């Protein structure tokens, strides 16, 4: 088996929690912090840490605003994030092709 696709997997996305965040955001233009937290059953701290990591990598952008006098944090994938996520999926598909019995 060619190990190359494994080695190319993006370590930032590959982590379970961050992959879940990326997957959710890949299917929605933007999601609020609360929506992500509820959907993924993560703690505030855990989600904040993952979001910060993704933000620092340039995969995710965070917008802070106010709605009905309450702070609203929304997250969305950046262009780099969408590209990295697509590459990650493509690599997974390559791995599946390789492991599929012939």
């Amino acid at each position, binding site marked *: 088996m060619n190990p190359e696709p494994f080695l190319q997997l993006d370590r930032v996305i590959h982590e379970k929690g961050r*992959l879940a965040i990326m*997957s959710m955001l*890949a*299917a929605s233009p933007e999601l609020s912090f609360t929506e992500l937290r509820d959907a993924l059953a993560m703690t505030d701290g855990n989600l904040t840490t993952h979001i910060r990591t993704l933000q620092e990598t340039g995969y995710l952008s965070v917008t802070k605003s106010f*709605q*009905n006098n309450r702070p609203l944090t929304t997250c969305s994938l950046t262009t780099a994030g969408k590209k990295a996520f697509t590459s990650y999926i493509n690599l*997974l598909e390559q791995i599946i092709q390789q492991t599929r019995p012939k």
Partner: protein
Amino acid sequence: MEPNWAAEHLQVIRTLMERSALYRRALAPIMILAGSIGIVAAAAGYYFSIVQPVSFVIYWFSIGAAAVCGAFLMSRRQAWQQSEPFWSPPTRRVAQAMLPALFAGFALGALVLLSGASAAAREQAPAPNRIVLVCLPLAWVILYGCAIHAAGFFMQRGMRLFGWGMVLGGSGGFLALGTQTGPGLVVAGFGIMGFFFGALHLAYGIYLYFTEQRRNDA
């Protein structure tokens, strides 16, 4: 490393992507409309004494159809205002999730209509009874709660709680009113419909109206 690892990973990603497509139409106006229709219909049904089993079921089927049409038009209007397709993937998913329980409720009502038709063929008019005036509405409440709960998976968390409230309320109603007999049956029948499908919806709609913070831009 497990050979299926990557495939399982992709499956998890697909599931998460599907789940993130939340249904975010503004529910407050829809709930307020449904609640208002429910309360007015319960009061009118009681006032006009629509208590014969077949009439009772046809009456509430008509009210349900009117409420669904109203909700449909409101959702359609929202989608149009936001330049979105009405039959979007989240809308489709919500409809699919609700359908089994709603169909079961329809089937129960249809059973009453069939037995009414059968009695009419024998020239016997079925009298108002506990099964139709109390048990059927409570079964509708429970099934409706199941439908809302199933759809709530793709909506705000509050909807699932609302669904649970209907299921628990309907079950509690069976314990409290399941053996009801006598003249109280009519009050119980319209009271159940008015309270669960009217007052609760109206209250939840008003709650949503004041608390809905999320934008409808799914």
